[in-house]
């Protein structure tokens, strides 16, 4: 139960950063926090108490008490997607800094109405 609190705590912090903070890099940090929280939530959904990791490293492992492998597959993909989005975001941040000289999203507002 604690893991859920941890996971959703991270997500809420990430969303708070996105809503309130004006610096673009701080927002990108918020996005990475959200992704980390999400991954933690997904894995903690698939966890079984007293379960073992789903790998047959030793011959005598009982597959019935193994942890659910599907969320782990999902999270692998989700981590790489978050890295991809992050890389794009940072590249854009660099170009934005080059164009506007500032990363304060409060001031970069000429694309409106």
């Amino acid at each position, binding site marked *: 139960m604690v893991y859920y609190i941890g996971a959703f705590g991270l997500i*809420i912090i990430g969303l708070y950063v996105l809503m309130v903070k004006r610096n673009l890099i701080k927002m990108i940090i918020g996005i990475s926090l959200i992704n980390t929280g999400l991954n933690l939530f997904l894995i*903690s959904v698939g966890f079984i108490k007293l379960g073992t990791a789903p790998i047959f490293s030793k011959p005598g492992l009982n*597959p019935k008490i193994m942890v659910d492998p599907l969320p782990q597959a999902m999270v692998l993909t989700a981590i790489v997607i978050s890295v991809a989005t992050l890389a794009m975001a940072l590249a854009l941040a*660099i170009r934005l800094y080059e164009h506007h000289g500032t990363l304060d999203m409060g001031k970069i507002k000429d694309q409106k109405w």
Partner: protein
Amino acid sequence: MKKIIAILFLLVLSYGIYLSINSIPFGVSKTKVGNYYNLNGVKDTGANNIVTAVVLNYRGFDTLGEVTVLFLAVLGFSTILFTMKKKKSDNMPTPPSLILSIGCKFLFPFVLLFGIYIFIHGHLSPGGGFQGGAVIASAFLLFYLVKPSEKSSKKSFQLIESLSGMAFIVIGILGLVFGNYFLSNFLPKGIAGKLISAGIIPLIYIFIGIKVGSELTGIIDRLMGKNNEKQVK
């Protein structure tokens, strides 16, 4: 003002999430699909590491999408940074201290070897293409820290990526040709636990490992901005 609104909305959101969490008990097996993978993962795919079996065989299509996403990320990354002008105040990177250069030079081969080990043993021990590629990338990161002005040709990285991406799809098509399902495991599964076993999984993971490694290194290399003089339009 924005802070108050934000906090209010987040409170409502967390209350909603709290309501929906009640129906997801922690630690109790909820899945209808997971046990099947655990029970006959080894039999179907021949891989000891069930997660790799799920990632590459059962849900191989996801990983194909995944590889495209990473390929896209590098593409987008270079289109955005491609037209960047050389910053005038690019101070000469401080020469690496002695310990750093010696340490990096010493560590680089071992980290590289460890990365390659990870993605070759993807189907046996935990780890796989993505983790192995990341370790290789951190190896190259170490390498760049030492020789910042090292010119690594971007063209070669791009070729490796697209070649390994195509290899992944070609294996999928071969699966379609031989096992009349796209991405089906047509190679012999061999004895579980051996290195050359679990059909196409090691093959795919090697290609993914190389691909992820080259892609992440490409990203870091462009970000280091060493050789963006060439890109200057």
